[in-house]
């Protein structure tokens, strides 16, 4: 188990390094930072001087090595072009809000998806099953920003029950977290349902019944623990989708997290911040996957042995 984790950690770091490289080059292909940062009326000499001062005149490889070297050896992501403070400090201010949002979304999504998926499998083709299939389909077809805006209109504007922007209190969390959860819920519910249906057909379920196990014991103890393995692994893979989702959700609800910071930084050409966020997100995805794999190995002894 220990070597498994260490191996996976090394893999994770390599993945982050590659991602940082790709994102670095993509940013520079996209637009010349000097042109974005300087006012449009800047003279040619000014631009050249600015480039020299910022080091943009060097070959892109050299710039990358310089950047990644500082990141690795000094944990220094440079200063924000716009805010003129260390990038890391900006990030640190935003991380808690994003973590709070994503964790709540994952929690809400699974707290609903798991029981609903189990019930749908157990009462297959019942009204509940068909209804949840319908809702799942609708949920999957709905764009995130549209759902967010609808929730704002209904619960914020018409009913006036919940605040629609900012993050000061717990009620502020509800709408964005629900929006993001709605993004994950349909897939997870379908996954639990199909996993349960698959497992309930297995011979060991019949063995459990032959032992005299009651229905609840059969569904939860014997079936769900097996059906949870794919759910855990997929949830790990969902981190990337989830972080993409935060960009939209945080923007719609003015949630002061990394997603909104990313959007603003891209618009303002604040490349060090964008770069740092990309690396942080990829780190999150990789660690999320790793945690999911560890959890799956914890549940399933066959994975542990590999």
């Amino acid at each position: 188990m220990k070597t498994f984790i260490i191996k996976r950690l090394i893999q994770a770091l390599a993945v982050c390094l590659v991602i940082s490289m790709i994102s670095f080059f993509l940013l520079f292909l996209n637009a010349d930072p000097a042109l974005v940062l300087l006012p449009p009326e800047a003279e040619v000499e000014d631009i050249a001087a600015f480039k020299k001062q910022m080091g943009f005149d060097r070959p892109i490889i050299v710039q990358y090595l310089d950047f990644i070297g500082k990141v690795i050896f000094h944990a220094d992501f440079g200063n924000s072009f716009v805010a003129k403070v260390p990038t890391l400090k900006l990030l640190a201010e935003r991380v808690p809000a994003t973590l709070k949002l994503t964790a709540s979304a994952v929690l809400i999504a699974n707290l609903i998806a798991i029981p609903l998926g189990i019930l749908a499998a157990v009462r297959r083709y019942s009204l509940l099953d068909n209804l949840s299939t319908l809702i799942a389909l609708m949920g999957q077809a709905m764009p995130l920003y549209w759902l967010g805006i609808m929730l704002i209109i209904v619960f914020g504007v018409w009913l006036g029950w919940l605040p629609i922007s900012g993050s000061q209190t717990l009620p502020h969390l509800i709408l964005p977290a629900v929006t993001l959860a709605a993004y994950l819920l349909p897939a997870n519910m379908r996954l639990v349902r199909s996993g349960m249906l698959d497992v309930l057909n297995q011979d060991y379920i019949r063995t459990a019944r032959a032992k005299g196990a009651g229905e609840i014991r059969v569904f939860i103890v014997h079936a769900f623990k097996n059906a949870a393995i794919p759910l855990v692994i997929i949830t790990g893979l969902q981190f990337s989708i989830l972080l993409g989702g935060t960009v939209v959700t945080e923007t719609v609800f003015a949630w002061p997290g990394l997603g909104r910071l990313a959007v603003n930084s891209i618009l303002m050409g604040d490349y060090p911040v964008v770069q740092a966020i990309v690396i942080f997100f990829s780190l999150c995805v990789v660690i999320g996957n790793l945690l999911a794999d560890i959890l799956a190995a914890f549940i399933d002894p066959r994975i542990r042995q590999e």
Partner: protein
Amino acid sequence: MNSSKILEITELTTCFDTPEGLVRAVDGVSLVIESGRTLGVLGESGCGKSVTALSVMGLLPKPQGRISSGSIYFQGKDLVRKSPRTLRALRGSEMAMIFQEPMTSLNPVYTVGEQIAEAFTIHEHLPKKLGLQKARETLFQVGIPSPEQRIHEYPHQLSGGMRQRIMIAMAMACRPKLLIADEPSTALDVTIQAQILDLMLNLQEETGMSIMMITHDLGVVAEMSDHLAVMYAGKVVECAPVDVIFNAPGHPYTLGLMRSIPRPGRKFSSGKQALAEIPGIVPGLIDPPPGCLFAPRCDRAFERCRLEMPPLFNLKDQSGSSHGVRCWLAESMAQQPATQGGRT
């Protein structure tokens, strides 16, 4: 014989709803098992052996499978009319079952110990720790070496034979009165097979339980059973004490089965040595043709066989034990048609 019956199945019919139509997997089956004895249930693949067993256990796959008529008296109670709750309380305590597929019948995410201990948790409400303690004792009783270690192992770490032993241990945990063994050794290789059967015989001697031994292997029947019921296409076609059938099989199908094994078991000496196989296949159970279902494959079939299903004729032989045969050829030798199916 005046020993009491632990299980008496009468005219049991079990159906499955399938997209192609209603399948009568078990059709008017009557069987009796006496306390402490072993009934062998013999027949080709698909003849309804497992479905009979699952009907007794109340484990028919839902919602497609159901018992449509008949009764199953177990220790004097009709299981067909009992609530699911009552059946659940009996399963794993009074009656237990081991399955055909040792490789997939254990839950992969729990240790062997946990899975055996569960029986004690369910039926004796023991806390997990005590349950594990008793699981270890059970493993010891079924002769599994180093039970201390075994209880911490997972199914995927064990061989097929070991898994089947674990299944037996699990079934024996609460000392059932009736053990239904559905081809417990079919999936295992020959030496392991013998060990598993020996183990069951020993456990029977120790505990006095009754066994329903389902198999398609005559050798297993010869070694294990007191009585034998031969099934064909959902019906019992012959039933009697094992030696009666082995000495004088009454149904052409039984005779065919005996001819189709290369080395006859030690219990029967007469008979041809040539290895014959029964031509043809078991007919479909949806809309079966009238008449005897074995007729299309029977070399002694005549007109009547194709038109009318024979009842189970009761041949009384010298020793006085009953011998039921579902064949028109037996009519002339029968004293009267057996109404309740043969006694075993």
